[in-house]
């Protein structure tokens, strides 16, 4: 009822009031109980409310952009770490590389979740999402590139032939010095 109305947040776009309609107008007629001052949203100016909503959307978009660009920092950080790790295979470089692969992958998986708070019919989220995706893919590419520089990708002929056993021989020959 009243309490329910008061709870209605500013961020709601529409609301259906299921409270008893017959009692509400009549309750206007009678005096409020002492110490109770009725402040209802219906009395707010509709113009100020729209303004508020626009500001909110702007803020959301801004936030969404921030989130979308956040992998970039990560990317720089990763790049630095990779540079530090060097091109030899050891625990550190492998750890860095795998985290560099894992982070973009997990981010890509949760792209919907990341942008969930900024969902609004007024906010265009496609671009931030695309940027977010692109940056994460960039991170993934960086990780793969690192993997390659470490020589852990089977891109060379040597990676495919190193386990091939020597071919069978058709002929068989034996002999040597005679026993004496």
């Amino acid at each position, binding site marked *: 009822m009243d309490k329910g109305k008061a709870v209605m947040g500013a961020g709601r776009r529409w609301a259906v009031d299921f409270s008893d309609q017959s009692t509400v107008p009549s309750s206007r007629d009678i005096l409020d109980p002492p110490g109770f001052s009725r402040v209802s949203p219906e009395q707010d100016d509709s113009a100020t409310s729209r303004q508020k909503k626009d500001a909110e959307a702007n803020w959301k978009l801004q936030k969404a952009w921030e989130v979308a660009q956040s992998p970039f920092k990560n990317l720089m950080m990763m790049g630095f770490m990779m540079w530090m790790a060097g091109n*030899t*295979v050891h625990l550190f470089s492998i750890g860095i590389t795998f985290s560099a692969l894992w982070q973009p992958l997990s981010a890509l998986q949760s792209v919907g979740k990341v942008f969930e708070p900024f969902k609004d019919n007024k906010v265009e989220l496609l671009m931030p999402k695309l940027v977010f995706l692109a940056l994460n893919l960039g991170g993934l590419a960086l990780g793969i590139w690192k993997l390659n520089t470490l*020589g*852990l990708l*089977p*891109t*060379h*002929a*040597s*990676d*495919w*032939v*190193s*386990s*091939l*056993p*020597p*071919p*069978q*021989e*058709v*002929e*068989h*020959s*034996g*002999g*040597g*010095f*005679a*026993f*004496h």
Partner: protein
Amino acid sequence: MAMALRLYLLLIVFVSSAIVSFSLYEDQVGLMDWHQRYIGKVKHAVFHTQKTGRKRVIVSTEENVVASLDLRHGEIFWRHVLGTKDAIDGVDIALGKYVITLSSEGSMLRAWNLPDGQMVWETSLHSAQHSKSLLSVPVNLKFDKDYSILVFGGGYLHAVSPIDGELLWKKDFTAEGFEVQRVLQPLESSIVYVLGFLHSSEAIVYQIDSKSGEVVAEKSKAFPGRFSGEISAVSNDKVVVLDSTRSILVTISFVDGEISFQKTLISSLVEDSGEAEILSPLLSNMLAVKVNKRTIFVRVGDQGKLEMVDSLSDETAMSDSLPVADDQVAFASVHHEGSKIHLTVKLVDDLDTVLLRESIQMDQHRGRVDRVFINNYIKTDRSNGFRALIVMEDHSLLLLQQGAIVWSREEGLASVTDVTTAELPVEKDGVSVAKVEHTLVDWLKGHILKLKGSLLLASPEDVVAIQEMRMKSSGRSKLTRDHNGFRKLFIALTRAGKLFALHTGDGRIVWSTLLNSPACARPSGISLYQWQVPHHHAMDENPSVLVVGRCGSDSSSPGVLSFVDVYTGKEISSSDIGHSVVQVMPLPLFTDSTEQRLHLIADTDGHVHLYPKTPEALGIFQREFQNVYWYNVEGDDGIIRGHGMKSSCAGETADEYCFTTRELWTVVFPSESEKIISTLTRKPNEVVHTQAKVSTDQDVLYKYVSRNLLFVATVSPKGAGEIGSVTPEESALVVYLIDTVTGRILHRLSHQGCQGPVHAVFSENWVVYHYFNLRAHKYEVTVVEIYDQSRAENKNVWKLVLGKHNLTAPISSYSRPEMFTKSQSYFFPQSVKTIAVTSTAKGITSKQLLIGTIGDQILALDKRFVDPRRTLNPSQAEKEEGIIPLTDSLPIIPQSYITHSLKVEGLRGIVTAPAKLESTTHVFAYGVDLFYTRLAPSKTYDSLTDDFSYALLLITIVALVAAIYITWALSEKKELSEKWR
């Protein structure tokens, strides 16, 4: 998959590059290795049994060992192994404290201190010609220092002071046609008699003053006939000689310098006479003659008259005569009767007086008695007791005393000729192993002790207990197969034709068997092959080995095949194959349904015979008939001939398992400039993991891996002798790689100014060989790696991913593969006796060269040191791959001697065999000594080490779990109290 493998390989590279040298800690000695000391077949034995001091026997052996053995237990007090060219001619004790040995055909005289074996002096004697070598140390019971050792050798008679080895005088006997036969030095006399034959028909006796070496008198007498050279000195003034017809015994007496001959027809002594032979035992006033497979004793009378006093069956061995109390002389004879031997000691003068008669149960697998040496001692009841040292046909040495075998030594193992490996039986459910397994309490106790050790809490007693526990760790010597393949049998064939199975865990002899043959009494063993190795029927079929032997020493003498069950050591069958054996070719790829391996045996007529002789084997062979080739190397002529199979030799014999061959190719080396000194092929059972060699820049080189490659080393005929006998200009070493199917010379490499001997090892696609560089005055090692150029085009990744390549297609030698080689040479600071290479189950683990050095030790050298890709300044990537900067010589890291402080005396060969665990390889080295160890060339990357503390791990886990629970409970409590606040 490829990725995982790559990671795996990378891991290996890392592990292997971590520490270059292989070494072990002091307390690890004897955990994986064992060492057995032998002396070889005894030739001479001299007892030293004085009342004081330890009783010992000094022996010299056919392996050129002089040793002092404990008479009580048969242990070696001390031992010296002289070089292979330093054969011992005589051994004796002088002055009661020196052991005198004469060696190198009478040109080297040495004195060793009797108690500890230190060399006291050594005298090199002048030698002008080949001749008999005789050592005469006068028996002087008074320890009169005024006598000399007489040595005849190289045409000179030398008198040497026993005190310091000083040469007192020498006398020249190098006259043309003169052969010295005996040097006699009668007791209490200053005259030395030298008896010799001039042109085998004239006897000359020189009387020489033993103080000055002056010839006092010279007498000669012509003999109407010729002497055969067999001689027996029966007393101080008489010798008995066999004439060249071998039917007349001639007694030569030279009393007071007068020579007289007295002929006795052997037919007058025994009825059924034939060719006679004088036996070696020295008996006083008597000689033993072998006539018609019987031994007769002939007594020499005062006037040189001969009479037969006794005759024995052939199977009798006799000792020299031995003075016993009261001027009596006794000798021992041993003869067989069933499974027993009878030792009889009789007086020489009176053959009816038997001083001792003993019967001893003897193992059938020791064969006949070969030699007997006796020694007497005074019993508590003042009678004479005798001990006899006997040498059996299998070269074992036994001491008999009081009717029992006091100790025995398996000296046959000092002359191992061929070695192969065999698996132990699979552990079956019915087999009880409870005795060996520990109870849980013992197990826990052991691990607590180990834990104490690893935490440095152990007291000295604990340390001893830990070491003891490790030494006889439960599973080590079990007679069943283990999961890691650490327990195996090494089957060794000895020169005596005896087969021994040695356990890798502790080196004990599991079984031994002396080869028999229906055709001849004792065939000589030639070589050993794996005949049947069951995999499919491992539970119910026993593996077996094939022993190829021969009746007689001639190459055309008939061969004998013997099949021996590896688990039991029983001879399954033995067959006389009716043709000679020149070469044996196992066909490892072909097995029949019972997993018997097909073998081809070539005879002297150029035929090959297929074994096993079953229709199934014939069917398998006929399918591959056109693809089987054989070659033989004729070292003397410098020719290598290749043969192909032609047809069944049904036209000549009815044998359908016999095939004729046709000559396909010959490689003839010019005899004036090249002489074959060494040939080598890959081991047929070697496993190669991959055909590709990946270089640092991810480039692929394809190895040329072929079983049909022969490495041949030739040297200029002048340079075939000793090192340094030629100038660098005169000698050149040439090595070849020859395809033995087509005869094509794939590679030729010439080393000017170099000389043999060449020791080489051939594995996968590389050969490493060791030779002497005359210009640099240093030994050199060269590595040659062979790569296939024709497959190098397979570089397209997509084709490889899709499998569109011909890399696994069977290849033929006739396809003329293009190949190129990479090689590099290094100096090597040591002379080498033999080289081997480690072998592992899958061939993944990096390899080590096992170099048997001149000091009879084995050095493990990583193959990475002999890698042609080494450069002076390797790039960072190359360094990461483990390429070592190039140095002019190969390093010898003292820690990488796998024999650590031991020596494998007289080292002749090293055998490696893979364990089931990929990282590990068995190494067995044989010579006079035997040595075994287990090696992990890249460390044991696939298993935990033996001293890994499971208890510590367990305790850590328990502690962690406990800690987790405690902290969890604490945090719960704290949270609760937080909430209440």
